[in-house]
């Protein structure tokens, strides 16, 4: 038993070294901008860059829109499938898993061929249209996470009884959906939202190939041209991921009535 504990500690120490060293190194590198001393110059330079502010706010706006439309698509669908079309569930589950199976670059390749400016639906013909297409592509990327978390939350409530109760009190569909079902699956919606946020903020492939000024392509551009700003940006990106996943885990722990034993 003693030996087992030694091995366990060893595994954790090696793992911790592998995971923490790059973070320390990145942070140290980001402070090296001024010769001979540590400073936050790289961060100052990043925050002063108008392109950083533009691309970052663009990506945040995109993330918010993606979450909004994603929720509006997924919650009613998951609800309706549970209530009226249980036989359709395996199909929905399979389709929502597809974005994990088909690489993002392949999906966006298909968009570029199907929705170019000379096609029937010319999404990429205008900047606004491309933004719309980009939002749909982000929705596609977040589909597996969004659907799973909403569906898991819906499993814990009795959709049929809730609906019947609301109907017998004379509630119209809109009220049932937004004031009955929605609040009950809020924990699932929130965890789906935060993971979507983390995905959309850093996504490179789709905005890059659709030529939209998002944060991911901006990061790549800075990486190719600057020395000390990239590590500073990596630290910022890590902090954002940490914040969104941290809030997610906190929220999901908070939402459980009885937390499982550790």
């Amino acid at each position, binding site marked *: 038993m003693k030996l087992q504990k030694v091995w366990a500690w060893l595994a954790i120490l090696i793992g911790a070294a592998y995971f923490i060293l790059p973070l320390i*190194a990145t942070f140290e590198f980001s402070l090296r901008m001024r010769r001979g001393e540590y400073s936050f110059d790289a961060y100052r330079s990043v925050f002063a860059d108008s392109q950083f502010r533009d691309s970052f706010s663009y990506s945040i706006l995109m993330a918010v829109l993606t979450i909004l439309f994603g929720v509006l698509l997924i919650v009613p669908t998951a609800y309706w499938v549970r209530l009226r079309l249980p036989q359709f569930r395996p199909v929905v589950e399979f389709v929502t898993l597809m974005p994990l199976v088909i690489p993002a670059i392949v999906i966006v*390749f298909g968009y570029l061929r199907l929705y170019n400016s000379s096609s029937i639906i010319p999404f990429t013909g205008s900047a606004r249209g491309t933004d719309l297409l980009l939002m749909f592509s982000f929705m596609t990327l977040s589909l597996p996470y969004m659907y799973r978390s909403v569906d898991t939350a819906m499993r814990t409530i009795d959709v049929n009884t809730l609906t019947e109760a609301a109907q017998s009190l004379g509630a119209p569909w809109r009220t049932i959906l937004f004031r009955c079902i929605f609040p009950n699956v809020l924990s699932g919606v929130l965890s789906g939202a935060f993971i979507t946020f983390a995905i959309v903020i850093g996504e490179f492939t789709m905005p890059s190939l659709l030529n939209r000024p998002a944060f991911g392509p901006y990061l790549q551009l800075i990486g190719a041209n600057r020395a000390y700003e990239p590590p500073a940006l990596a630290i910022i990106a890590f902090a954002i991921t940490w914040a969104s996943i941290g809030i997610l885990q906190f929220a999901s722990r908070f939402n459980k009535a009885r937390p499982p034993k550790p």
Partner: protein
Amino acid sequence: MTVARSRPLISRKTMIDWLGVSPFIVFSVMFLIAPTLYLVTGAFLNAEGHFTLENIAGLFTPKILASYSISLKISLASALGGALIGFFLAWAVVLGGLPGWIRSALLTFSGVASNFAGVPLAFAFLATLGRTGLVTVILRDAFGFNLYATGFNLLSFLGLTLTYMYFQIPLMVLIITPALDGLKKEWREAAEILGASNAQYWTRVALPILFPSILGTFLLLFANAFGAIATAYSLTGSTFNIVPIQLYAQIRGDVLHNPNLGYALALGMIVITGVSNLIYIWMRMRAERWQK
């Protein structure tokens, strides 16, 4: 329609039922199924729109085969490394008798790190193991060990594999920890009462039960690495010819000088990630039998 009202082909209820999921159906057809089908059929057509197998045959040229082989190698190596190290980390926190806070710290960190991929990850590893990275510099100044003199290069097979493992290991930890939790104490006790040694318990009882989970997760990691592009692209630019980068260059500017060959390239990716994901799902269903 009056005809439909007098003798409806499908009942009103069925119609409403399907109307409720129609936004989802429209969305998935437009943004998932149609684009994929377009590429898949395009892979079997020539420039004039006739059926051909030429594009598929075109994949078996040295340049494209080389990029598939380097992609497969990196995905296999990073999935193997990620699965092995991730398994030991999960084993350490579940069965190693470590304090509870280490387990929750590892799981929380894994949740973050498995999502910390793409361009920033490349920056982090450049700052760590690049030519002027912290670890490289410390090894050189404090230990007199010149990493780059040994032929190591971050922009290579080994470097990229090491970088990918940063999101592969946490993913393995997240998926395999519940499986290890599912190993019942009674199985171990029963094995010990029957006189099994620790090694026998692992090779005859625990590992066979865990095998579907481990193999399945390995395949998931493999597909995960195979489709990834952002990290490799910002580490190496377009010089390192893994399949996604080749496809990226093809989408940008038809470097293969044949659009339909590009579709075949995409089809190859779908087939590889698709098959490994299907086996993963199948394996997970098998694994769940033991987790009830």
